[in-house]
């Protein structure tokens, strides 16, 4: 049997369903450090750089990372050079990638979402925009905007008015009802929902018993949160039938990717697993193809949502 790994996010065609999770793979840095032909054998079917904000951010005080049981806690704090520098310096270099580029943006205020989307609108190299309304490590009056359906609605509406590009909204799982937030994003014009950003957490130092992270609390990623992510993908894709979902949270194997697609995702993203192996995605894609073949599943379209049937 021929397995067709192609999938699409609206107008964005992907040669397979595995993209990277924002903030976990820096293609420009990896291209310098890893083998010379990284861009030619790029493992992801689309590339999302780390979230950019309107103004540069230096990020949170270190330490910014700590490994937990089957997980990773981070508090990077959206360190980035700002959207102007991104458009000027990074975007032209990323245009050399053989895959579509999806730009992730976050606001330090609600208005920023509209402004960022507007600034990207003119650039054809930008295939789609992801609104990160869910970073646990920057605070807008103490709470990330994606915790509240009304504020999410407003941020997405502003971006929607500013761009005709395919608009993805990335949600946080740290809410009482994620379907409510997803519905607000959809209502405000989102074309796609990305699930999940990291889970709120904290660790203490073994010896000093003080919080390890400079920012005190952080976001948990990796296999530990996979059940939380599968549930979110299942519930949201079931509730918002028709709107594609990008699933992520702990994917490390082709089997994991298979499960997220079956749960309802049209594409999946690999995050923390890139740190175990920077080319993990290549293995994941080939395993996924093999597993679909074994199960007689001919295409990603056929696979998406199988768990709900």
């Amino acid at each position, binding site marked *: 049997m021929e397995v067709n790994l192609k999938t699409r996010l609206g107008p964005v065609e992907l040669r397979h369903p595995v993209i990277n999770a924002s903030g*976990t793979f820096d293609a420009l840095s*990896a291209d310098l450090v890893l*083998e010379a032909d990284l861009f030619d054998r790029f493992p992801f079917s689309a590339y999302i750089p780390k979230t950019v904000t309107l103004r540069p951010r230096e*990020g949170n005080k270190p330490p910014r990372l700590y*490994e937990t*049981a089957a997980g990773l806690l981070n508090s*990077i704090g959206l360190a980035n050079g700002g959207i102007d520098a991104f458009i000027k310096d990074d975007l032209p270099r990323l245009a050399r990638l053989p895959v579509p580029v999806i730009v992730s943006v976050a606001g330090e205020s609600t208005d920023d979402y509209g402004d960022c989307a507007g600034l990207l609108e003119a650039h054809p190299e930008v295939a789609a925009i992801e609104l990160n309304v869910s970073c646990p490590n920057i605070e807008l009056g103490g709470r990330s905007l994606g915790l509240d359906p009304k504020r999410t609605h407003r941020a997405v509406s502003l971006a929607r008015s500013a761009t005709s590009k395919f608009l993805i909204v990335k949600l946080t799982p740290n809410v009482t009802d994620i379907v409510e937030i997803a519905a607000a994003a959809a209502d405000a014009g989102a074309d796609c929902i990305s699930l999940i950003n990291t889970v709120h957490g904290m660790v203490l130092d073994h010896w000093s018993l003080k919080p390890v992270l400079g920012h005190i609390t952080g976001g948990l990623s*990796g296999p530990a949160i996979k059940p939380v992510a599968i549930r979110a993908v299942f519930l949201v894709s079931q509730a918002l039938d028709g709107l594609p979902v990008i699933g992520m949270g702990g994917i490390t194997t082709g089997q994991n990717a298979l499960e997220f697609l079956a749960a309802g995702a049209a594409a999946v993203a690999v995050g923390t697993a890139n740190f175990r192996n920077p080319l993990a995605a290549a293995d994941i894609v080939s395993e996924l193809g093999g597993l679909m073949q074994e199960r007689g599943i001919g295409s990603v379209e056929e696979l998406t949502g199988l768990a709900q049937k």
Partner: protein
Amino acid sequence: MDAGLIPASLCECPVVENRQVGAYRQVSFVAPEIAALAQPGQFMMVRLAGESLDPLLPRPMGVHDVDSDLVKMLVDPVGKGTVALAGAAVGDRLSVLGPLGNGFDLEGGGPAVLVAGGMGAAPLTMLAGALLTRGREVSCLLGFRTRSQTLAAELFQEADIEVLTEDGSAGRQGLACDPLPGLLDGQPGRTKPEIFACGPAAMLAEVARIARQQGVRAQVSVAAHMACGIGSCQGCVVKGSASYLKVCTEGPVFDAKDLEWK
């Protein structure tokens, strides 16, 4: 200290030896690509190959030594990840990404003083060798908590070594930095030595202070929690004089004057 332009590779490397050296485990594995390229002060991201998700991520490990196809690391088992690495048995396979980071800048001239605290001695063996090969005079100050922690002086065969312990149970009593001011001044007419240091943060801060005071250059290798080792995650930063710097790609070796010291 330029970002390495040498490509790092990811290899599965069989362990061929695991022996006790001082309080640490010296683990040797077959890694021809890394052995061929590694420079003193560079590091690798290492984990036991396999599917277990605990530990989840590789750990940064300095290249301790290279012997034809073999790479050696010296492991201090301080937590979950290092305990797993220290327990690697002959025949086990390691997943290794490297060499990574900039390594020490060897291009300066004149004498070199190497200052190490505890495990910080690990990367300095190769450095001492490389500096001696370049005809530079090398003296080493090696500080440890106590006798059982001292690293066998054989690791630094040809260099001039002074061992210090905090409790005086081996070598001189004191900290690695104690003899440093004496080594730097009091040598009229000679080029002032360059310092190369690796060890705990407090020791590096003291080295930086002494270097500034005496007007000598100090290259310091700093530690940080790392997730990726290749500049992807922004997790490993230290405060530079202007902005945060990534230890994995802009370091781990920095000129002490480029960092902010508290």
